[in-house]
Each structure stands twice: as C-alpha cells, then as structure tokens.
C-alpha cells in the first residue's frame, strides 16, 4: 500500500473520529428542513370516550401555541398540554405520550390553565427509568429539532388505555435538541481542545517523543502512547461537551470511558518509563551528539550560523590570504559535524504521524499496528455510539480487556525496541 495514502487515510480516520462530533453538530445546524418523527396525524383510537381533546401545546403560560412549530422546549423543559375540558379525575393518573409511547418516570403532571383553558403541565425530565426513551427519541439527530406527536393517556396500570389526543395541527411540535448557542459553545470548546492537542502537534512536542534534544520540535517523531492518550482524551471530551449541551447533564461519563482514558494514560506513562529506564538507541545517539558538542537544537543552529559567518569571512579575504586555509578547515569541520548530525539523527526524525506510530527504529512492528488498529476501531465505535444513543458507550469487559492487552503488548515490545 502506498505509504502516503495509508498515512493520509489513517489521518483522515482519526480526524473523523476526533472531529466527527463537532462536524455532526455543525451539519445539524445547517439543516434547513425539520425532520418529523412519526406521523403527526392523530390515530383513530386516540380519542377519549368522554370527548377530551388536546387543543394546543405551549412552552409557557405566556407564550403562543407551538402547535406544529419548532419550540424552545428541550430535555428538562416544561410542556403545557392544553385541553378542551378539564381532566375528570385529576392529572396524577395521566402520563405523557410522545409518538404514542408513554414517558415513564416523569414527575406527576400538574393541572393548570393556559389562557383560561384547562391544561396539564409536564416536566420533561430525564431519569434512569426513561433514559432509553430519550435516547431513542434524541439519538442520531438530523436536525436541531425533533418533531413529536403528543398525547395523554392513563399511566400503565391506572385504568383504561384510551388516550387523549388532538387534531393533527394541534398535537405535535418540534422538541429542541440543542440551541445554536449550545452548538457554538460546544464547537468552540472542542475546537480549543483540537487546537491545543492536535493543532500544535506539527510544530511542538505535545504528541512527540522528544527523545533527542538535538532535533527541532517539528522533527521529533510522533509518540504512539501520547497519540493514543490524546485521541481518547479528545474523543471523550468532545462527547462530554456535546452530551452536556444536549442532555443538560454532567453525569454522562461512564466507567468504560474512564477505563479507556486510564488505559491510554497508563500506556503513555509506561512507554515514557520504558524510554527513561533503559538505554535506547536514542540515548546512545544523544550521548554521541553531546560528545560532538551538540547538546541541544540550539547548538545545531549555532554551528550552522558559525559556518555562515566563516563563509562570509572567507569571501571577504583576498585569494592569497594565509587565513583562508584555516577558515576553510573550520568550515569543513563544522560541515562534517552537521553531516554527521544529519546522518546519525535520520533514524529518529519524524517520517509523518502514521509511520512514526506504527514503526520503530527497525521498521514496521505488529505490536504498534495492533494498538493503532484497535484504538481506531474502538474510537469509531465510541463515536457512533455517542451519536446514535447520546450516551458514552458501555463497552463490554472483553473489548476493554482487548484494548488493555494490546497496550500492554505494545509496552512489552517497546522494552525490546529500546534494546535494539
């Protein structure tokens, strides 16, 4: 496979994983046509026997009807269901149905009024009881609103299942999934993380090994351990931000997400420990470069500058000057030092992200490729799961063990790498 193609492909995959959340959010913001979930038409069986009917929907007592319109009502918001007659036996036995499905676990409805008409007030609260319902309703969003059909009915076990519905134009509305402000804040937060973690990666050592201080930051090879850690951090952070804004809930992190961060963090830390604890080829080269007088990249730049200065001095001297020989020798010596430097540091210079993380000094390695592949696979699953279910995924133990084994294998083989 063409290396550059593979590198680009994998880079794109990572970018997709890391950036998909804001991209999806952005695409939602640009969506023009509201998608209507379900059929807004009232079902034939929805009419209550006593003639009760939903005549309107509102988001507050002071607001206009939201019938058939996008609203500002969102999760944890309040919904006024306006009826043509008061409920005959109070509201406590009635449940809210959206798209003909009962929302369990809501606080008891409150009987109230809306512009002199009887109404029932519901708080659209998410809880563990109705979590699956909200996940199905709000997951895989294609717009900033999701249209729902509203009806009332007796709670499960509270009597006959007849439902109180409304006319087609009076019993459905657009439930807000997120606001444009949310979108902006989420995108901004994610963008900041992307910039600080990945955006500076080209010129700084955030994601690089930094094993040879004599190399420029942009030449340092990318680190698999750090990249993996940054990958999961970015993904989980982005998911957290999006879920927070959509669900208005900070309790979205799962133990599996923490496990993933833990595994990646431990992998990165172990990789650094391996590098620090043993004499690696980079250590040997570092030692040799120091013997050459090159302790840092600034020393390399100094030698380059010394050559330029001497070349200028040489050019200014007459051809017969006895100083020319000495200057030429000094230029040659420094040139030799730089050529040796370039020759000996070549194996440690970054060859691009994908090649760096999948190869060691001897070439491609299976243990590195394994970590990259499983990380990408789990990342894709993670991303899809967040988008589909609006929740951090619950990876099963086997998958997490697989990730752990893969990372442990990488660290184990890295010990061998540094001894090569």
């Amino acid at each position, binding site marked *: 496979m063409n290396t550059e193609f593979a590198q680009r492909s994998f880079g794109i995959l990572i970018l997709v994983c890391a950036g998909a959340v804001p991209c999806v959010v952005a695409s939602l913001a640009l969506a023009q046509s509201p998608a209507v979930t379900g059929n807004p038409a009232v079902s034939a069986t929805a009419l209550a026997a006593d003639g009760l009917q939903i005549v309107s929907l509102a988001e507050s007592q002071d607001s206009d009807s939201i019938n058939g319109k996008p609203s500002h009502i969102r999760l944890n918001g309040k919904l006024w269901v306006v009826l043509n007659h008061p409920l005959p036996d109070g509201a406590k036995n009635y449940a809210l149905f959206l798209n003909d499905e009962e929302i369990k676990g809501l606080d008891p409805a409150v009987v109230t009024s809306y512009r002199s008409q009887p109404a029932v007030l519901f708080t659209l609260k998410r809880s563990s009881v109705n979590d699956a319902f909200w996940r199905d309703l709000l997951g895989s969003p294609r717009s900033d609103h999701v249209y729902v059909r509203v009806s009332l009915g007796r709670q499960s076990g509270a009597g006959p299942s007849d439902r109180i519905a409304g006319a087609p134009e009076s019993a459905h509305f657009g439930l807000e999934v997120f606001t444009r402000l949310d979108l902006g804040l989420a995108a901004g937060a994610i963008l900041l993380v992307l910039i600080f973690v990945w955006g500076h990666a080209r010129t700084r050592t955030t994601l690089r090994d930094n094993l040879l201080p004599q190399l420029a930051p942009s030449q340092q090879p990318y680190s698999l351990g750090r990249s993996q850690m940054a990958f999961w951090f970015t993904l989980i952070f982005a998911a957290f931000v999006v879920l927070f804004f959509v669900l208005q809930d900070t309790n979205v992190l799962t133990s599996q997400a923490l496990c993933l961060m833990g595994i990646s963090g431990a992998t990165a830390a172990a990789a650094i420990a391996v590098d620090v604890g043993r*004499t690696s080829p980079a250590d040997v080269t570092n030692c*040799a470069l120091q013997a050459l007088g090159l302790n840092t990249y600034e020393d390399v730049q100094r030698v380059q500058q010394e050559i330029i200065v001497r070349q200028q001095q040489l050019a200014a001297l007459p051809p017969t000057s006895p100083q020319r020989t000495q200057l030429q020798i000094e230029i040659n010596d420094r040139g030799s030092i730089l050529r040796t430097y370039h020759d000996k540091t070549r194996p440690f210079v970054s060859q691009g992200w994908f090649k760096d993380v999948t190869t060691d000094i001897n070439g491609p390695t299976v243990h590195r490729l394994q970590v990259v592949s499983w990380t990408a696979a789990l990342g894709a699953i993670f991303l899809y799961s967040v988008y589909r279910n609006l929740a951090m995924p619950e990876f099963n133990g086997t998958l997490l063990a697989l990730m752990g084994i893969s990372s442990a294998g990488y660290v184990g083989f890295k010990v061998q790498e540094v001894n090569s």
Partner: protein
Amino acid sequence: MANIKHVVVLMLENRSFDSMLGRLYPGDANYRGLTLLEYNNYQSTGYGVWNDKGMLPSTATIPDPDPGELFTDMNTQLFGTPVRPETPADMSGFAQSYATQPGKGIYAPSAVMHYFTPDQVPVISTLATTFGVCDQWHASAPCQTWPNRFFAHTGTSLGCVNNKDFSIPFTAPSIFGQLQAAGVSWRVYFHDMPQSILLKDVWLHAVTHYRGFSQFLADAHSGTLPNYSFIEPRYFADLFGVFSPNDEHPPHNVVHGETLIASVYNALRSSVCWTNTLLIITYDEHGGCYDHVRPPAATPPDGWVSQPDQFEFNAYGVRVPTVIVSPWIPPGSKIRNPRGGDGTGTPFDHTSIIKTVRDLFLAGTGQLTAREAAAPSLIGALSLPDATNLGPPSLTPSAVQATLAQVSTLASGEPNGIQAALAAASHNLPANAPASVTELPADGMPLTPASYSTVTAAAATATDRIKSFLGV
C-alpha cells in the same frame, strides 16, 4: 615452496613485543622474552616489569594515560635523553619518559613496565604458539605511528619522524602502486579512516580498492580475497555505534583488539583460501611500552634525514609483537632471519612485509628503498612441505563488550596522536578521489593544525571526509 596466493596484514597500534608476548615462552633460552629481571630506574626508584592479574578493563587498558610517542619521547625511552646520542640504546628511560609526560592524568612510571600474560591475551598467544612468532621484528624506525605505517607501505617515511611532520598526500611509491601496475589484486579493509589513504599512490584506485572491514569477512567467506589485503583497525571510539577502538593503542582495551584478531583469523580459517594464505599480525610501533631488546642498526632507506633531529633512519625502532599465521608454518615456530638467527643478522621490520609480498607476487620488480632491499622475507618461515598446520577451527575471543560508559569516556576525551593527525590530514583529501593522473597533486601539502575538543569531533571530520573521498 609454499603455495601462497593471499597475504593478509593486520597492523595494530602501539604495543611492544615484551608487553604483549614477553611471557609467551617463559624460561625458554631460545626465545627473547622477559626474564622478569628487567627494570627501569626513575628518580632512584627501580620499576621492574610486572603483571596485573585478571583482565578487568583497568588491567586491559594499561598503560593509561597514553605514553609519549614522539621522536623525542622515544629517544628518552631508548637512551634516557630526548636528544638521540651516539651511544647504543640501553632501554633505560621508559619509566622516565612516561613519568615526565605533560598531561592531565597520573603517569605512574610502572604503567609502561606492565606486560600481559598469555592467558590475558589468549588470541594472539594461541596464534603465536600454534603457528609462529617473530621475536626479532622491529618497528622500522624509532618514530611515531605514521612513519612506521608508511614504512610498511613504501619502505620509507621520507625523513619524517612524527605524524605532524608529513605533507599529504605522501608521495613515495608504494607496494600498492607496484601491485596495481603488475595487475596483482589488492585491497585495504578499514573501520573508520584508513591511514594508508594518505598515500598518493592509492588515490587513483581508492574508490575500487578501499572497503569496510565487513567486506573482508565477506570476501574471505566467498573465497574472493585479493592477493594482498591490508587491514586497518578502528582508531576512533565510535559512540554512535558503541564501538571501542580495536587498535590496542594505549589506553584502548586490548580485548577489543583480540576480538579483531580472532575475527580475521576465523574468517580466513573458514575460507576456501585458507591453505593458500599467509596472515601477518603486527603493530606499527611500541607506543612507549617497555621492551628490553636494543634496536639494532638499520639500512637507511634513502637519503632523507629528519629535521631538526638529524636522524638518518639508520636504526630500527623498538620490537613490536608480530605473529605469522599460515598452514605452511610449523607449530611453535620462532621466526628470525635465517641469515642471522642468533640475533646479529638483519632483523625483520615492516619492510619485510613488502619484501615478502614482492617475493610472492612481484618477482623481478624493483625494490622501493634500500631498507626493503635489506629486509628479510618471511618466505623462509613457510617451511612445511604441505599446508598441514591448519590450526584451530576457530578462536573464541573474550565475550567482553565495550559499555556505553567506557566508549563515552573515550569518545569524549581528547584525541590521541594518530586520531588528531588523521582528522587533520583528512582536510588534505580532495572532496572526491582523483579520477585521472592529471588530477593528482604533484606534491603533498603540509598539515594544517586543527583543534578537536573530543575524539568524536575528530572522528566526525575524518570519517566524513573519507566517505566523501571514496564516494560512499
């Protein structure tokens, strides 16, 4: 006559005969080794020859620091005075020369009186007893490395006694040039920078005739060795590869030189070329290490006289360890000039290499210098009727490898004489080897002093320039 088709020379650095092989045959009256009664006085204290038991790095690197090896140092070592007198050498000033070295280390006089026992240097000792040892092989002149190495290639040093005195390229005709002209194959195998590349005679052929040491192993394995091979050891500590020098130059660990010798022998022994091979293992000069045999008078190679010392090159240098290896040599040979086996005849020196190669491959061609003309050949030592002394199938060198810390210490230190000289001389190499006679310089250019703070810096210059010169 022995059927020799391949001569291989491995020339190491700066060890005296007594320091390496002085106790090879203890008590043997027919072997000019140490009796353990030898000593030098310095400031009214006698320093006898001695051995440090075991073979820890602290032993294998004796003497440390490096003894003096300038012409004046050698005069002190041989005569007790830096100016060469008319009187015969009495080998009395080694301890004095060492103790009075200018430097930063502690120059304990006894260090240069140290010798290794055969069990400490088992590779060269095994080869010496299995095949033959020359106890009458002297450095060609009581001079530094380069004069003696040039003697091995050209039969002269053109009047130079110290490395820094030379103009590069060295313009004297060499055995390589004669082999080339006669269509006899030759190669120089090297580790970092070959000193012999400073010969003008090789410049036109360097690109095709200079190869890394690994190529020697490959050529031996494939049976494609040239008629004449000259092997140069690693002179510089290579911190990038964590390689210690294997030239045995004090204070470099002799164990690594032993490993090199074993590698060369094992490659030859397992080669189809083996029964037609003569291997000469020698050292360029004694490097300030003690030897008790007085260098005899020698035939001056040419009319050159050193300046300002007025040395006429009419005396040999100190004895150096030389072991002759071939299936044609009787086991346990003690090789001397058959025309002077009692030690009074012309001894072997480095020009004996040229003489032997000429006898084998260049019969009837003109000798390079009068010194070569006077030199005994080694052909007489190949006295078995058939190649029956095959020797051990292989030699196992010490498993000791240089540590990063040891190499780092060497690589971060100041370069020694040959290291600094090689780095300086590398500036006299053109960026690319000349492709035609018209591109050859008429004369050499004096070395321009260059300062290198570390061995690694000197090595960077030397190896970078040689890579450019050879186009590799």
